């Protein structure tokens, strides 16, 4: 079913409509080519995993998809609209949520104030109950008076997720949500992402180095290397791809050679 | 006996005015020591109450005067503040005699406008406008005396932008036009801080005026100007600088390059016997280069107050002390101070026709002094009766 989506982002016959896609994304930074002709598409409720060695350009791609950086060329589509020119905050208002590799929190606010600020980030302002809903969803049980800087990694991630989820986004871009977490916390993320994708029909784009996490939740995997997509497909398929081996699991390729 | 307290707000910390105020404090100290050595005033010792004042800041000036009021001083005597009105306002209810060495018409015209409110405010020097008005007069006098032979009738005015300099420049233009002997050939605007005088000097050469007036206020920059000017002078021009070079450091900074320049002050220690004697006295007490202006003004101000107190008999009778001051002029080391006029400002000598505050004869007003630097020393060259020497040719004259 997943294969049926054509490469240029439009809805395929019979398939679910594509929620979010990008085509021909390329990026130059500091005179260096960081990304080259990236095409991706996700549909509602789908979990698309992105893997690749360090410096492959995954975070850079996310910066473009979320609107924090303009691409050199290429377009980003969301719900059939061209959102390439929109900055992150307006994409967020459209329903695109994005998390960051580093667990950012507002340094000067307490958890309660953070929720309040997020509720009132833009109209319509939400109620306290929406915030509670978001916090419950991610399982954030922290006293309102705790300063956000005191939170540890996992709760920091949860705080941002809760702030995003209370607006009920339709797409989440997660950059290494499991980085720096221990196994039980990874399991919790695993469960949360399943709930979001399968029960709430949120499309999820996830960059992750933990293959075991992706293997269990991702519907589809995209492998990036040196700014290019080198393979795409189910986990097993991409794992079998020799190019992926070469880029990502060098030891395997070594064995193959020798 | 309970001492009589003289309030001296003086500037210790600001970026401007500290040197003048130090001179002023020295002069007052000298007077106080003399008075106390001679038995004080009315049998009571004289005491100084000093407080810091930032002459640029209205808040600080106000505050310093308020501190004097709180100290219940019997009179306030100080050099100047660049924001006179707030400072004056801080004392209008207390109304102790308030004598300052400001040379700003802005303050005295307020006194004239509200005589009741500011009845206690006296300005010990003639105002700055006289610099401008007198300049034309002086040029003519020097021409008559013949040392300086103007090569043409042109005057070149270099003006800085602050109000003080602007007022002077305007007065000078007006006077030159009125008297008609010279003409203003060009006015060049400069702006503190002047990094480099080269373009200005270049313009001077271009105009090539017989008389050049550099209307600025910073001694250090004058010194820099002198050095650069000496490197490529405008031949045969009479170069007049504003009050700035009176500050003691000017000679140190400019060194031999200062020779031949002329500067003026509306009030300073005369070059007559009395003045010279005072200079000696001052030098003994405060060795080093002595300032020519505020050292004497402070001394005169203190003695003036002393006389007033002795005449009235009670320093706390502020209005009577003020009345006495208005009625009784004094001849001090810096000239004859008569503040019995609506401006409560000393009269100016010579009469340059600028306004009604002009004295006809020397012993009726404060002579504006013109000083030339000769052989590394300040020498008063004008007006005649109080001068030490005559104008001599500057090194760049042929």
């Amino acid at each position, binding site marked *: 079913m997943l294969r049926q989506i054509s490469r240029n982002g439009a809805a395929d016959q019979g398939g679910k409509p594509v929620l979010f896609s990008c085509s021909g994304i390329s990026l130059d930074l500091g005179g260096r080519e960081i990304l080259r002709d990236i095409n991706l598409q996700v549909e509602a409720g789908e979990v698309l995993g992105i893997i690749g060695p360090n410096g492959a350009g995954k975070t850079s791609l996310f910066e473009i998809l979320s609107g924090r950086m303009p691409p050199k060329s290429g377009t980003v589509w969301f719900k059939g609209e061209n959102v390439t020119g929109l900055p992150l905050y307006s994409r967020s208002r459209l329903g695109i949520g994005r998390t960051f590799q580093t667990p950012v929190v507002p340094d000067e606010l307490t958890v309660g104030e953070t929720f309040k600020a997020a509720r009132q980030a833009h109209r319509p302002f939400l109620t306290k109950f929406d915030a509670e809903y978001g916090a419950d969803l991610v399982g954030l049980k922290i006293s309102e008076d705790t300063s956000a800087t005191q939170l540890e990694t996992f709760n920091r991630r949860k705080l941002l997720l809760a702030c995003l989820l209370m607006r009920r986004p339709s797409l989440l871009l997660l950059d290494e949500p499991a980085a720096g977490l221990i196994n039980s916390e990874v399991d919790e993320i695993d469960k949360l992402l399943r709930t979001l994708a399968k029960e709430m029909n949120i499309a999820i784009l996830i960059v992750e180095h933990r293959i075991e996490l992706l293997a269990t939740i991702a519907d589809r995997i995209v492998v990036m290397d040196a700014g290019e997509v080198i393979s795409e497909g189910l986990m097993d398929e991409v794992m079998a791809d020799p190019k992926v081996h070469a880029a990502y699991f060098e030891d395997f390729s070594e064995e193959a050679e020798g | 006996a309970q001492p009589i307290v003289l309030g001296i707000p003086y500037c210790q*910390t600001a970026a401007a005015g500290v040197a003048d105020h130090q001179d002023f404090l020295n002069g007052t100290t000298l007077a106080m020591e003399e008075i106390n050595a001679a038995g004080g005033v009315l049998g009571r010792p004289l005491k100084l109450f000093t407080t810091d004042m930032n002459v640029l800041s209205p808040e600080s000036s106000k505050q310093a005067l308020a501190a004097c009021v709180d100290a219940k001083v019997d009179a306030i005597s100080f050099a100047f503040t660049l924001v006179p009105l707030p400072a004056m306002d801080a004392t209008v209810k207390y109304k102790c005699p308030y004598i300052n060495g400001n040379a700003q018409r802005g303050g005295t015209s307020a006194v004239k406008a509200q005589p009741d409110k500011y009845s206690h405010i006296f300005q010990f020097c003639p105002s700055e406008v006289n610099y401008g008005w007198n300049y034309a007069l002086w040029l003519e006098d020097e021409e008559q005396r013949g040392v300086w032979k103007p090569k043409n009738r042109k005057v070149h005015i270099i003006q800085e932008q602050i109000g003080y300099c602007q007022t002077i420049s305007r007065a000078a233009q007006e006077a030159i036009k009125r008297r008609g002997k010279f003409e203003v050939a060009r006015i*060049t*605007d*400069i702006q503190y801080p002047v990094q480099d005088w080269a*373009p200005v000097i*270049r313009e001077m050469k271009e105009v090539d005026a017989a008389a050049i007036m550099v209307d600025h206020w910073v*001694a250090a920059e004058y010194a*820099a100007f002198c050095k650069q000017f000496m*490197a490529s002078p405008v031949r045969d021009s009479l170069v007049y600088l504003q009050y700035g070079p009176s500050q003691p*450091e000017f000679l140190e900074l400019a060194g031999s390059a200062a020779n031949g320049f002329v500067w003026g002050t509306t009030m300073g220690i005369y070059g007559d016997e009395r003045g010279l004697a005072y200079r000696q006295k001052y030098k003994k007490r405060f060795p080093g280069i002595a300032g020519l202006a505020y050292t004497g003004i402070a001394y005169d101000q203190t003695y003036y107050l002393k006389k007033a107190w002795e005449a009235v008999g009670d320093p706390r009778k502020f209005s009577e002390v003020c009345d006495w001051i208005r009625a009784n002029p004094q001849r001090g080391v810096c000239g004859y101070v008569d503040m019995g006029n609506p401006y409560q400002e000393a009269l100016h000598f010579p009469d340059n026709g600028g306004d009604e505050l002009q004295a006809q004869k020397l012993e009726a007003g404060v002579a504006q002094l013109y000083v030339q630097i000769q052989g590394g020393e300040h020498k008063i060259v004008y007006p005649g009766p109080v001068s030490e020497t005559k104008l001599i040719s500057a090194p760049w004259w042929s």
Partner: protein
Amino acid sequence: MDIWFIVSNTIVLACIYGTLAIGISITWSSLGLLNLSYGFIFAFAGYGAWLFAQHVSTWGPAVLAAGILSGALGGVIICAVGFIPIHDKPNFTIRGLIATLAINLIGTQFLLWWFGPRSKNLPEIFGNWSVSLSGAVFTADKVGNVATSVLILAVVLRWMQSSRRGLEIRAMMMNPHAASIVGIGVRRTSFYVMGITGGLAGLAAVLLSQTYYISPFGGLMPMIKGVSIALCGGLGSVRGAVIAAIVLGFNEALTGMSIGGRYVLVTQFVVIIVILLVRPRGIAGLLDKAREA
């Protein structure tokens, strides 16, 4: 209008500005410290040279050396008081800025109290002569300024290029993290850096003593100029600072010639504002990898 006059004036001013700004730029780029006590170092060095001239010798080069040394001493003091205790604390840049401002406040008031308000003069270091080049007259101190500042800047840059300390400083400038990995101690190197930049400030103080006479507050204007130029050039880029010095020198020469000296400050700040609006990280902000401000 006389092109040659403008060019020569530009060179003179650019040399002055360059000497003022490069110390600030180097401090920033290697220590990440925007040194706002530069004005104090400037005055401190001036007084050092003055004391030397008063009590020891008035021989030009010796006075110059005394100024440089006392500037270096001033820099080291700033480093010990205002950099070492805070360089690893959070919000270091703002702290450093405020700390150096505070030191500046204390220091200048101290100098005022100690040395009194009168400006001081240094003996003429380059003698008292002048040359006239097609209409423009150069006094000895101007020619000396240009020659000395070009020379000393060349020496400093050369020293930074080839010696081990210079290598350390440059390394720290490019990548402080990697520098510590190869055993370059931030604290130790910071003393060298502050010493050198202090020495540059001292050099500037002595060279410019004929324009900015030595007075407690005499360092303020040079500091504002130096910081403006360093920022305008793009913090951390020596090349940018040099370009900015030339641009501003040119602007000043041109303004002085064309529309009059009173507009120098106006055009200067207008130029700075325009440069910043066009290039938010200074002239070289993109040429060199700028450090996060």
